[in-house]
């Protein structure tokens, strides 16, 4: 490499005082990951410990250790508490963590793939498509393979919706925020209407109630036997996205620039759409459509670690897990003994965040306008 040997004097105006964000970033990636990891452990513990019956954190871990093969303590614990920790709360808290991590990671990738900071599965109608797929299976009772067929139908619904919304929003090789959000909203409205129609006309009251609770997003009622599917989808999604983190970065430069840096954009996007729909479908089938996690977490995480997907993806996964575990904890404790669907809570936080983001983007764009 023959580097041109010259040292230019630097113009004073080119130096900018590093601001708060730059300093945050300079702290490095490893500490952020460690803090988030520790936070997740604390959150999981709290999620299991807190509830109508309080279990001290030490006992939580004692019960977990025992389940993993440690010796029984003397005096023995009450079996009721063991049941609460192991069979009721632990799977629910884990599903919350898996769902939060998955949604945050899907949102991160989706924002890169459509090159728009407002993209996320719920706002783009992808969750509604997944819901419709799943509800169809429930109502028509074709659930021969239990959670697998539910997830498969949700995946199909998610993929079709994503393709429809993307195709509508894209015109002349460009996607504007307005078109993207509007087509997402419109498609979601239609799909929700069909879902509601299906529920109201099903004639089987119990199932309708069950489906209604589920469409608001909730983590209750999960069992160990159904947890493996979301877990596997999360691992698959994070693994593949991390392997392609460099390509996701290239997309941020624009489609033409990404092509000149060796990325076959159309093919890559098609593959990633399938992957994101798969993860979204499985998560929605397990936990219902939970909105705004995929919108908020990527943005918050980028403030901490910058925009490189090799950093954003792992941090978003941990952050999303922490966020949803606490959201679910709040959902089942603030109005106890009544339980608020966790999707209602995330929308309460996410809606204002979305409006703020929309406004920030509008201001940025007018600021740039002329130059």
């Amino acid at each position, binding site marked *: 490499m023959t580097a041109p040997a010259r040292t*230019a004097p630097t113009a004073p105006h080119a130096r900018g005082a590093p601001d708060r964000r730059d300093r945050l970033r300079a702290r490095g990636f490893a500490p952020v990951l460690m803090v988030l990891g520790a936070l997740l452990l604390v959150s999981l513990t709290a999620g299991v410990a807190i509830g109508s019956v309080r279990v001290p954190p030490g006992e939580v871990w004692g019960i977990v250790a025992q389940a993993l093969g440690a010796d029984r303590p003397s005096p023995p614990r009450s079996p009721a508490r063991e049941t609460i920790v192991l069979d009721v709360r632990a799977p629910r808290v884990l599903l919350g963590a898996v769902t939060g991590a998955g949604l945050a990671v899907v949102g991160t990738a989706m924002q890169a793939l459509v090159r728009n900071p407002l993209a996320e599965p719920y706002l783009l109608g992808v969750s509604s498509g997944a819901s419709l797929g799943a509800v169809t299976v429930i109502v028509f009772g074709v659930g021969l393979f239990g959670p697998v067929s539910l997830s498969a139908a949700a995946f199909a619904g998610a993929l079709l919706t994503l393709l429809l919304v993307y195709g509508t929003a894209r015109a002349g090789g460009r996607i504007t925020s307005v078109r993207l959000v509007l087509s997402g909203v419109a498609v979601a409205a239609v799909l929700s209407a069909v879902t509601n129609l299906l529920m109201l006309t099903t004639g089987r009251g119990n199932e309708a109630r069950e489906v209604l609770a589920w469409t608001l997003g909730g983590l209750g009622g999960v069992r160990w036997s159904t947890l493996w599917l979301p877990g596997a989808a999360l691992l698959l999604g994070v693994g593949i996205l991390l392997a392609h983190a460099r390509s996701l970065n290239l997309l941020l430069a624009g489609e033409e620039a990404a092509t000149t840096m*060796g990325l076959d954009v159309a093919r890559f996007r098609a593959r990633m759409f399938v992957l994101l729909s798969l993860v979204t479908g499985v998560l929605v089938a397990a936990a219902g459509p939970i909105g705004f996690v995929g919108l908020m977490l990527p943005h918050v995480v980028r403030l901490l670690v910058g925009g490189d997907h090799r950093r954003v993806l792992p941090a978003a996964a941990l952050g999303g897990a922490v966020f949803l575990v606490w959201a679910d904890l709040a959902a089942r404790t603030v109005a106890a003994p009544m339980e608020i669907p966790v999707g209602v809570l995330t929308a309460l936080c996410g809606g204002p965040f979305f409006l703020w983001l929309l406004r920030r983007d509008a201001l940025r764009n007018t600021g740039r306008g002329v130059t």
Partner: protein
Amino acid sequence: MTGTGLDVDGVTLTAGAHHLVRDVSLTAGPGEVIGLVGPNGSGKSSLLRAVYRVLRPDSGSVRVDGADAWSLSVRRVARTLAAVVQDPGTGFDLSAREVVAMGRAPHKRLLDADTAEDAGLVEWALAAVDASDLAHRPVDRLSGGERQRVLIARALAQQPGLLVLDEPTNHLDIRHQLEILGLLRRLPATVLVALHDLNLAAYHCDRLYVLHEGEVTASGPPEAVLTAELLAEVYGVAAEVAVHPGTGAPQVTFLPGEPAAAARGRA
């Protein structure tokens, strides 16, 4: 190796029924700096897009180092050809350094980590465009000129044998314009660059191609191409062309008023 040869042969590009570029041929020998000039809408950007393999020609061929660019994979082309395209901005908080590091992508496999060599190339590329002190700033908050330099650094980090640039001096102040064009001359690469400023093009390019309404009207060394008659015909302006005594390059001075009556009659 001092650069990769480029042969554009009879390329025609259309958008619907409209011709963007018609039967254009162009060559760049290894190490040459070739300038592409012409008024707005003359087809410069379209021709460059065909060269950097984004716009597929309706007919004709683009050969990079003798091989047809469209029969090679995107990735394969990206290892020899880098482009600086008109910037659409990112909006995602990438730092300048992260943007420049993207240039290493075509040389990386799926799970390759960044090596010390990559880091060194990124540092070198930033320094080459006088942007080392921008490394940790988010590109979205740089000025137009600063961002342009970062994009050029990204192309340099790609270690191209052929560098294609679309108006790289846009937004740059005069000092950085001269520095960037001087840098292009010193690179061990062939350069194809679209430029607005005829005097900069005349001084820095080995040969010029003049595009007018999608066709090549003139080509050759700057002193042969840049004449008052050609400027009147292509740009519709009156101008005087003299040889600068210091640089030896042709120097264009635009004059007020209509071009001489000898030029193409205008309605």
